[in-house]
């Protein structure tokens, strides 16, 4: 009993101490809120990115792009006369951790959040951004629910993205096949095990048929398949002008190789899942001639803005920037631009400025925000020529 009494006393003391400490903390907080920051104090922006875990490479490259952009902006004098201070935190490729990180960044009084990269983690961070009325810019969340509530169809007020949605590039490719490649008949061979490829195929079909084309064959495969010859033989006999193959490079590389072996010489088309150095190793440079795919951006682009970005990035990080780095770079400039146009660091005003973005020019293209907070932007069309990516054109929506 004696021990128990002592323990209770100890607990009570600990409890009181914690209350006092808590009060102290709260007091200082209200104090800082009361005194408005002097005009020359830096603007804080939070980076909630994946620096470890499954998609660490996406987050790291994106962070590099964002940091480079903010350093450039600061060197040029900052925004509205104030420097930008970025706070980088790792959300460990985990949706729950993304929520925590967003909350911690909000406590540090950031005025905007950039990241996370993958859609699942963006969904985790969204409630924090919405409750605190702080805009969140997702650089690479390509799935629909990131900015739109799928149940109600309503746009999420404080969430924006700088990348296009997956199916969007399928529609662009459909237009390109009909308009530029003058195709009348198309065959589709899609990876039916991913929503990504199915979405691309659906969008391609819609835009291609709208232009008067017909789909002569619709075939599928699943991730991990190795032998496509029977399906390709069937497609060959339908004599299409183009074959659209949305999927990832492991399978599409083999499809390109086997299609050429079977004597299918018509253009093969794909999406950003094709983008990998391994594509050439799997299919061989020769088989890939006369193949085209869409992407967010290409480091081979001759656009002066892209050339400048690639040079600066290479100088800073000794490697070629990928699409994530480019999207991060654009997201950073987009946020800075919105703060400038808002003329304020108030979350709601920045949000309104982001929603009103028109003709913002970044390295991943020029875009305006639509009502769903998705950028309406062009995709880069890449042709494979002897194993090298060559930028053919930018397809406008």
């Amino acid at each position, binding site marked *: 009993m004696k021990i128990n009494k002592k323990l209770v006393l100890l607990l009570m003391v600990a409890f009181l101490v914690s209350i006092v400490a808590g009060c102290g903390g709260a007091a200082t907080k209200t104090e800082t809120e009361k005194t408005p920051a002097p005009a020359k104090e830096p603007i804080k922006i939070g980076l909630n990115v994946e620096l470890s875990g499954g998609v660490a490479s996406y987050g790291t490259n994106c962070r590099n792009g964002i940091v480079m952009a903010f350093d450039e902006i600061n060197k040029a004098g900052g925004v509205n006369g104030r420097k930008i201070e970025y706070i980088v935190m790792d959300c460990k490729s985990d949706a729950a951790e993304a929520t925590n990180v967003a909350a911690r960044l909000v406590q540090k009084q950031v005025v905007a959040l950039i990241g996370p990269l993958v859609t699942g983690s963006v969904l985790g961070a969204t409630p924090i951004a919405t409750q605190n009325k702080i805009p969140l810019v997702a650089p690479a969340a390509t799935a629909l629910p990131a900015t739109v509530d799928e149940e109600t169809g309503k746009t999420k007020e404080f969430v924006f993205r700088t990348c296009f949605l997956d199916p969007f590039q399928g529609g662009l490719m459909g237009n390109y096949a009909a308009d530029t490649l003058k195709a009348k008949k198309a065959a589709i061979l899609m990876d039916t095990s991913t929503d990504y490829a199915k979405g691309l195929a659906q969008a391609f079909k819609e835009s291609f048929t709208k232009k008067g084309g017909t789909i002569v064959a619709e075939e599928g495969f*699943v991730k991990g398949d190795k032998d496509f010859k*029977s399906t390709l033989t069937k497609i060959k*006999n339908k004599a299409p002008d183009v074959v659209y193959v949305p999927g990832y490079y492991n399978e599409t590389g083999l499809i390109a190789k086997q299609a050429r072996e079977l004597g299918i010489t018509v253009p093969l088309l794909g999406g950003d899942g094709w983008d990998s150095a391994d594509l050439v190793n799997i299919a061989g440079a020769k088989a890939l001639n006369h193949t085209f795919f869409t992407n967010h951006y290409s480091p081979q682009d001759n656009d002066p803005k892209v050339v400048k970005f690639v040079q600066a990035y290479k100088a800073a990080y000794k490697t070629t920037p990928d699409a994530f780095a480019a999207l991060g770079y654009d997201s950073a400039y987009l946020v800075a631009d919105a703060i400038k146009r808002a003329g304020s660091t108030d979350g709601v005003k920045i949000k309104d400025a982001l929603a009103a973005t028109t003709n913002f020019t970044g390295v991943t293209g020029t875009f305006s925000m639509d009502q769903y907070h998705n950028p309406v932007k062009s995709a880069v069309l890449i042709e494979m020529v002897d194993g090298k990516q060559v930028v053919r054109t930018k397809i406008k929506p």
Partner: protein
Amino acid sequence: MYEFFQQMLNGVSLGSIYALIALGYTMVYGIINLINFAHGDIMMVGAYVGFFSIAILGVGVVPAMVFAMLACALLGVVIEKLAYKPLRNSTRIAALITAIGVSLFLEYATIWLLTPQQRSFPIGTFPEKNYYFFDQQLVLTNKDLFVLVAAVALMVLLQYIVKHTRIGKSMRAVSQDMEAAMLMGINVDKTISYTFAIGSALAAAAGVMVGVYYNTIDPLMGIIPGLKAFVAAVIGGIGIIPGAMMGGFVMGILEALVSGYGSSLYRDAVAFAVLILILLFKPTGIFGKDTGEKV
């Protein structure tokens, strides 16, 4: 019409790959009545040994195949000694479950050691040539011929070893009655080791060929072909060497026809439906004889 012939060619070339893998499966089963579910994964290890021989040592396809066969023969013997031998007198289901364990162990040990990344062979490993017939209507590649010839040659070799050599004779004796064979002075342990060595070497040869044929290898490449080869072995009559060959071709052609004239997505479903039908109506397979249980 040409489309049909092309589909048959596609089927035969796919079927020779299944046949190649099924040979080792069926041989091990024939001798010790164990369905070695790790067979597909030994094939994967063989493909990796072949890959590293070609990519690092810079040897050609045939020496790479020899290296892979030697390495996997050793691996097969070690697996048998560590995993299956202690279970020789326990139930067959225990050995079967152990085989699945070995299979998972090989898959994930490879992922742990070599990353799950897909790898592709260096350019020019296998100089490819396409042969066109009938005004480009029919296409055959030298890879198809290579795999077909290799499958037939290995089948003949295996049949010769089992039927006409001393070790083959002891294998057959062990398969008929292990205890009686032991009493006749046959070294059962050694015979079973040989069986695993030969079976695993066959898997390795298949692995290198599959790797070169599709130009890609990954740690899980053995699962689906392993299962399909198992079906092929059952169709042909498990334990019967020419049956494995036949079963492989049946499977390959069936898959080609389903993809070509039905839907490509039903291909695997049809393959496994055939397994169920065979097991229901003729469990001994095409070449199997209904011998009944010996009492």
